[in-house]
């Protein structure tokens, strides 16, 4: 939602279509226009993010050489300087890796036709009712020659893509339920289709990223099971009703299927042990085999996100933040049922307070429900750049969790 509005704020020509379509759900203050039968997009705020005051965000034109080069690259690749880039430029090192991966996945040669990629992007983004991202991909989809009929719903797309629907749903909300049967369904149509997973994940991540747009780091352990159990009670009370997003998105949403707590879920799902299947040893090799170079790109991105630190925390300098970063990372994986043998989950409780946990859980599991209040209520003394940093961690951790489940299923399918 929030992103949708963010999109509306961006008065770029390229976004005209999505704005017109998207503004319908922005709500409020347009009575007259509707009377006239004209829908006029209205900015709901200023700046790239609704959570971060505009003046806190880098003004275009005041960036340093590195950032400028990034902006130039981004503009060259996308034809626009989007809000995500403007927010992410708090962390140029990460942004560079992010843009590179995004570009490779969406624009470079690959096993899938370009319009398939954007269509998958639409499917993935719609899972979280992210109209901004849906619109973005709809534009790109049409731009690369996609058939507009497909946009009327998944049933109008080729069988190959329809088969992805179920996997997409599970992957987005309950990745621990993925089995090799899911993979079988997809690969029956085409062998080269494995690659889709990686791609899909990617999209999802993109979507998250837009949903986050703002976030960070702060001063900052019980057992895995406790944490897991607790994590499901961590939910915010302000459960505002979400209206279905705009036209296209509506066709892809199946609101009956959403995130369910890992441990509360009816059937018993065995805990995923990182020591048995981890990204560095297993996931990387598989992805690189299925889609050359992508493994490397994603690996690099994980690395940068995980290791990014400025050794600062709010007003303190020279702080080793590795412990906090690890706690956040592992907490997210914990919510997805992924366990590290060598981690003391008690640390999480000591380092992450309740409001922060609420925020993390909402962003990771139901990004469409994030509110400014949640954003403001955690880590009050921290800088916005630090909060953005946290969001980057959340994006990457969730993406890795999904990838791990999907790749494990593929591995099982292959053996």
């Amino acid at each position, binding site marked *: 939602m929030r992103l949708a509005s963010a999109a509306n704020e961006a008065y770029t020509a390229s976004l005209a279509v999505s704005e017109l379509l998207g503004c319908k759900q922005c709500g409020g203050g347009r009575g007259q226009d509707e009377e006239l039968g004209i829908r006029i997009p209205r900015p709901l705020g200023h700046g790239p993010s609704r959570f971060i005051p505009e003046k806190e965000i880098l003004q275009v034109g005041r960036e340093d050489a590195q950032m400028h080069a990034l902006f130039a690259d981004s503009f060259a690749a996308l034809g626009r300087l989007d809000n995500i880039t403007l927010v992410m430029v708090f962390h140029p090192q990460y942004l560079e890796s992010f843009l590179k991966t995004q570009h490779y996945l969406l624009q470079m*040669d690959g096993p*899938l*036709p*370009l319009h398939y990629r954007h269509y998958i992007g639409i499917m993935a983004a719609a899972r979280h009712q992210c109209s901004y991202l849906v619109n973005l991909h709809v534009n790109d989809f049409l731009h690369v*020659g996609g058939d507009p009929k497909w946009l009327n719903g998944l049933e109008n797309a080729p069988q190959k893509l329809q088969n992805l629907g179920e996997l997409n749903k599970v992957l987005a909300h309950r990745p621990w339920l993925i089995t090799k049967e899911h993979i079988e369904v997809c690969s029956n149509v085409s062998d*080269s289709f494995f690659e889709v997973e990686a791609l899909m994940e990617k999209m999802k991540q993109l979507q998250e990223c837009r949903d986050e747009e703002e976030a960070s780091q702060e001063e900052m352990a019980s057992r895995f099971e406790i944490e897991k159990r607790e994590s499901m009670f961590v939910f915010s009370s302000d459960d505002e009703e979400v209206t279905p997003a705009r036209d296209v998105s509506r066709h892809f949403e199946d609101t009956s299927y959403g995130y369910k707590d890992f441990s509360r879920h009816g059937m018993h799902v065995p805990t995923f*042990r990182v*020591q*048995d299947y981890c990204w*560095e*040893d*297993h996931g*990387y*090799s*598989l992805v690189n*085999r299925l889609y050359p170079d992508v493994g490397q790109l994603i*690996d690099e991105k994980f690395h940068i996100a995980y290791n990014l630190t400025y050794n600062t925390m709010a007003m303190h300098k020279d702080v080793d933040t590795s412990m906090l970063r690890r706690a956040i990372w592992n907490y997210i994986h914990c919510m997805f049922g992924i366990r590290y*043998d*060598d981690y003391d989950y008690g640390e999480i409780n000591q380092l992450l307070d309740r409001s922060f946990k609420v925020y993390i859980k909402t962003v990771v599991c139901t990004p469409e429900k994030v509110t400014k209040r949640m954003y403001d209520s955690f880590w009050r003394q921290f800088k916005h750049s630090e909060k953005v940093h946290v969001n980057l961690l959340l994006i990457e951790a969730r993406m890795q969790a999904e990838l791990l489940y999907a790749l494990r299923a593929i*591995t099982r399918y*292959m*053996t």
Partner: protein
Amino acid sequence: MHCHLDAPANAVSVCRDAAQVAVAGRSIFKIYAIEEEQFVEKLNLRVGRKPSLNLSCADVVWHQMDENLLATAATNGVVVTWNLGRPSRNKQDQLFTEHKRTVNKVCFHPTEAHVLLSGSQDGFMKCFDLRRKDSVSTFSGQSESVRDVQFSIRDYFTFASTFENGNVQLWDIRRPDRCERMFTAHNGPVFCCDWHPEDRGWLATGGRDKMVKVWDMTTHRAKEMHCVQTIASVARVKWRPECRHHLATCSMMVDHNIYVWDVRRPFVPAAMFEEHRDVTTGIVWRHPHDPSFLLSGSKDSTLCQHLFRDASQPVERANPEGLCYGLFGDLAFAAKESLVAAESGRKPCAGDRRHTIFFKRKLDSAEPFSGLASSALSVFETEPGGGSMSWFVDTAERYALAGRPLAELCDHNAKVARELGRNQVAQTWTMLRIIYCSPGLVPSANLNHSVGKGSSCGLPLMNSFNLKDMASGLGSETRLDRSKGDTRSDTVLLDSSATLITNEDNEETEGSDVPADYLLGDVEGEEEELYPLDPEHVHPEEPEYVLPQEAFPLRHEIVDTPSGPEHLQEKADSPHVSGSEADVASLAPADSSFSLLSISHTLYDSRLPADFFSVLVCDMLRFYAEQGDVQMAVSVLIVLGERVRKDIDEQTQEHWYTSYIDLLQRFCLWNVSNQVVKLSTSRAVSCLNQASTTLHVNCSHCKRPMSSRGWVCDRCHRAASTCAVCHHVVKGLFVWCQGCSHGGHLQHVMKWLEGSSHCPAGCGHLCEYA
């Protein structure tokens, strides 16, 4: 021999006496006795009330001095030692909980009884003295996670450690403050390393980049001695005892096999064990002095003992073959000796007719891989001048491609081809003329000639030679030509020879049919004409152009173009792709139409529309192109123009054009190549001579580049080049003397020089123009 475990294994280790093996995993830790025919469970070390993470083993190692002592590395970061000598059921001895993250590897000192080393995900290595409660020293890699630690077998104080960031470090156990040496060994994590049991300072490392590298650490800088490329990330590497160059590897993902490599032969594994159904996680040679037994544990929950003599040897299944062209058209062909011997045995006639070919054979000394790589080398040399391409140049220069009526062009080109002794080509031109021009215009003599040839010669060639080797085809054609008077006997003769060749083609490998083909030509003694048309000589690069279009899956861009599917379709029909049977089938209709044609010409006037033949003509063009004679294909394409163009897809045409242009340019036939470019209708081709047509000139006075116009300088406002004869500005071709740098309009200067050899500017120079 194998046995089923209850759970996936992570590591295996053998006892000093090679009679017992320890298997460790997340939920298993057992000791098995290795007996004659089976594994017998000796001991289960996972005892106690409830499973603790301390027992979730990432690695296990058995002390090579003390058969009662084992150590395990736990996934939660604990290092546990076990004493089998304890009287109680619980054999757990000591517990070191110093590491913060998973311990990836533990290693006992090879000769010291109490020294244990561990490497962990937290980036630290710790050395423990088992007589003390905690570590003796801690080594900080200053980089990421430690993946493996190994004590050197030869150097008492040295150990090597490998890291997730690709580094390998060498440490002295007495100096925990800094490492002795560090170098980057792999791209991405180095998962494992192993010291050579005999060669001092040799270290093998394996990484996620799918490589195994052997390093010589004795030199000042670590030197890479060997590099083996595997197909998946390397999880373990172990030198094979008693075999200096052998090592065993297994992979972490995707590939379940265990390979034994000879490091000097990095592309084909010396041996391969294929028993496991899931990834192999631990390998160990059973006895330090016995190269024949390998033990392995796997995620598929089995423990296996592999016998080296049972291993499959991929080398035996591979046919080592090599083929290469020399600068002057020589052909070298190396193949396994047994294969070559079998070939020559099957072909008794080959030995007799080797007038034009020198056949050399020598045995390679099979030093490094005795018995495996013995092969025979054959070199086929061409006679000096035999590979001449003069026919190509002549043809290119003399062909007429445009500017005259079609009938004249065909006749002219047929004449050129005949004069160069290329009768089949000449025949083709004549046929084209018959097909596309009014039949009444064909001179009767010419017609008779073509009919006789068309029915007897052209077709058998196309059918039975399977479009494979022009040289053989030409051989028989030459013969026909010589005895032109007797068409009937020719046909018989040709049929038999054609059959012969077809059979051979079916039986023989590609490399070996070369002598057979030359053989035919030799009978006639007209070697001169054999070579020119040998397709391999003419267009060595031809196959490279053709293949990429088909050998790779089509990318979406190609699918997007409307002609994509048709292109595929046509390709599938073309002789190049399909097998020999299909060829004959697809050409069968051509056969009948040809005979139809000849009959219709002799008996009554043909009223068949030219379109009727277009399929045939297209086949013919492809035939020539496949032969390597793109010259013919392109020439016909240009001459016939619209009549056939629509039937051949754009890409093929473009491909022929570019091949031909490339050839022309190699022979410096610039004018012809430009003419071809000009006449081509393919957009990609015709834009070739539109590129880099700009000429940059500098002003002759101020020496600055003249950007806006080429003849007047913006800065000094002077005309840069005036004609010394007429004193006007030269805007077109300007010619000048390199001696005095005066010059002018080409025409003017030429005219001037007719009357005087001095410079027209009056400088007194005796001008010379090249």
